[in-house]
């Protein structure tokens, strides 16, 4: 452990604990998943950064969406995200979740993933190199330090709008709302 960080640990041990042990759930859509096995295994060894694959979304706090998201997978993405315990961080990997990428005029992929679930960071590229995951994770550390990786809080706050967008894209959802559907009045 870095001695310079001892004060941080004493001030906020919970935050530091979740920061250095990111249990990742990889959502294997599209081509991005090809980059994941070398990251986990000996060549790039993600465990140096405290990242390990989680067996189930209920035990994970880092959500990597690696590739395009179709309407069918969006359903699974939302369900996976809602099952994860707080604090949870999401990273969109590759250019497809950012704005559609090469599928920008496809009839069946959603274009901007952050309309449906909150995203803390993006990794641009088609495909990004495996090293970029570690750059993203170190960025995520500073964001957690500063308290701006607050996507899960935003999700609670603006759940009304997120759920409305999900319903608009997917039709009727067959699971109940996760948070109360409150709409804040403007000016409050």
């Amino acid at each position: 452990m870095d001695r310079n960080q001892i004060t941080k640990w004493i001030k906020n041990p919970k935050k530091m604990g979740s920061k250095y042990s990111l249990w990742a759930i990889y959502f294997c859509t599209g081509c991005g998943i090809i980059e994941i096995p070398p990251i986990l295994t000996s060549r790039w060894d993600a465990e140096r950064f405290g990242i390990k694959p989680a067996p189930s979304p209920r035990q994970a706090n880092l959500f990597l969406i690696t590739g395009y998201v179709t309407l069918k997978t969006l359903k699974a993405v939302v369900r996976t995200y809602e099952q994860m315990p707080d604090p949870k961080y999401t990273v969109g990997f590759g250019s497809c979740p950012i704005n559609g990428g090469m599928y920008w005029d496809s009839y069946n992929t959603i274009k901007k993933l952050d309309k449906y679930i909150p995203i803390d960071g993006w990794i641009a590229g088609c495909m990004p190199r495996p090293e970029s995951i570690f750059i993203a994770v170190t960025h995520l550390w500073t964001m957690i330090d500063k308290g701006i990786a607050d996507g899960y809080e935003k999700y609670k706050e603006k759940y009304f709008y997120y759920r409305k967008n999900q319903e608009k894209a997917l039709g009727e959802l067959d699971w109940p709302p996760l948070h109360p559907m409150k709409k804040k009045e403007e000016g409050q």
Partner: protein
Amino acid sequence: MNKSLKKKLESDFDSSVEILEKNGWTITANKNQVLDILRFLKGEGFDYLALISCVDWIEKGEFELIYILSSYLADKEKMHLILKTRIPRKKPDFETTIHIFENAEPYERELHELFGVNFNGHPRLEPLFLDRNYKTPPFRKDFDTRKYVEETFGSIKSVEGKK
């Protein structure tokens, strides 16, 4: 064997055979005779249906159905056959080939979903991949993807800035 097969196809079934390469032929046939040709070819040893595909010739008002067959028999030369036929675009009905090649079932479902071709006699023509109902089947040439994307996904507003 190959020469006699070509002669038979041309004389018995009134189809034109084009030899693209030594082991790859294209057969263009009338739509009424496709089932007979498939049955005949299966008897000749072409017992593997690799793919059923479709092309939308919008200017001619036709769909082109494409059956790709190949033979895996050890004693014969390995060959690919492409069987093409055209059906009218206004009334895209065709007969199912499940009773000849059983693995035609998912291909026909896929073509029904993406091109709107009806295969009479198919036990379940339900959507295979897609989760949403499209007015025009999405692989037809007159399906305007950009307009569709703008209308469906572009109309969903970003959550950023909302309270």
